[in-house]
């Protein structure tokens, strides 16, 4: 039993910092509103509206931007009726009446972002600015209490996601929780497997010590 206690202590020395980080980051993540951190709290469902069905361009007249076209969808994009022509990895937009390519410019990106945005309670989110984030991504910044950024694909008009300062905080905590210091959120690597195995040993030996102690000296 003395050996078990010694081993419990030494494994404790080895992993106590990570165990504290696991419990601490887990606790804070649990305390933070997950819907807010994931950008779900500001995400509005796209409006469901009847589609105009007259004077539509036939499918055969649409441009064919990909060698393999997997689907062609008729949909509203902000106030415009478009065909979305989807290939394997990406899609392109065309005006449903003229077949002209639809360019997701700043105004359209802003309109899509607004449509996808639901103000947080007690606050009016106002788009503060719209800018290229990367070459193919628009970023629309909203002036709400968590500084929401809405990301819009500049080629396909997709709402890529809502992120805010809580998102970044939780990602930092997940970095500690997953021990992935590259920022990739990979939790399948040797370092964490070893640490987790040691932590398992720590908890199991702890329970054994607890049971022994309770049988020997009770609660004292």
């Amino acid at each position, binding site marked *: 039993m003395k050996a078990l206690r010694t081993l419990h202590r030494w494994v404790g020395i080895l992993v106590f910092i990570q165990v504290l980080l696991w419990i601490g980051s887990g606790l804070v993540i*649990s305390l933070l509103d997950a819907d807010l951190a994931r950008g779900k709290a500001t995400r509005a469902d796209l409006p469901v509206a009847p589609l105009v*069905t007259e004077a539509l361009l036939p499918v055969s007249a649409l441009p064919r931007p990909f060698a*393999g076209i997997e689907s062609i969808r008729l949909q509203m994009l902000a106030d415009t009726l478009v065909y979305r022509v989807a290939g394997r990895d990406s899609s392109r937009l065309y005006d449903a009446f003229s077949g002209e390519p639809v360019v997701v410019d700043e105004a359209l990106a802003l309109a899509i972002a607004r449509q996808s945005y639901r103000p947080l309670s007690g606050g009016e989110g106002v788009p503060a600015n719209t800018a290229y984030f990367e070459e193919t991504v628009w970023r629309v910044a909203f002036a709400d209490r968590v500084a929401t950024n809405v990301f819009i694909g500049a080629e396909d008009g997709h709402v890529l996601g809502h992120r805010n300062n809580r998102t970044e905080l939780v990602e930092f905590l997940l970095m500690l929780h997953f021990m992935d210091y590259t920022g990739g959120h990979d939790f399948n690597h040797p370092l964490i497997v070893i640490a*987790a195995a040691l932590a398992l040993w720590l908890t*199991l030996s702890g329970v054994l010590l607890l049971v022994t102690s309770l049988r020997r000296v009770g609660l004292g």
Partner: protein
Amino acid sequence: MSPRRLARRLHKWLAIVVGAQMVLWAISGVYMVSVDLDIIHGDMLVRKVHPVVNETLDEVLPPAEVLADQGMVTGFELVSRLGTPVYLITGPGGKRRALDALTGAPLPGLDAEAAARAAQRHYRGNNAVSKTTLLTRNPPSEIGSLALPVWQVNFDDAWGSSFYIDPVSGAFLKRRHTLWRVFDFLWMLHIMDYEARTNINNLLLRLFASLALLMALSGTWLLYYRFVRRGAA
């Protein structure tokens, strides 16, 4: 009570309350970090196929013609269903139906045999389909928020694979297998949400994590007495 005695008591009393949960956190953690996430997602079960509609783009009926007698429509899409070009139409209330895009004829949902064929197109192995079930109510929790009805196609393999197929579009929606189910069960234990297995903001988890943090801190305190203070003495 001396600080050291207090730390020892605290460590022990907290262990009584949260010790079992800490073992569960550790067991579930070891599993989740040890089994590669791609395996959990079932990537090894799936053959990447990309059904295209290219060949028939000049032959499909014009959407304006198809939609002329379909009433109010909120969604409209051309896809390939088991090699046939079909128009998927969403009506008010989200109800969906499929039309043959070449003839405009309404198509019934996939039958069991067609659902099995659709699943097999996406299945990498050579194992046979063992069971095909059309789920219409009380779906297993493993399909999440998928709309019903949906075909469940089980394969006779060591993974315990289930593929989920949309009866209207023939689309491959989800795959599940034993290692995923174990992961999901352990995830439930990890986040202590025994109902939906999704809510990480629940009170029980917050309470136990708080107590566990106190326990780990008191343990650290004990390590300090054992290794630092004694070493200095």
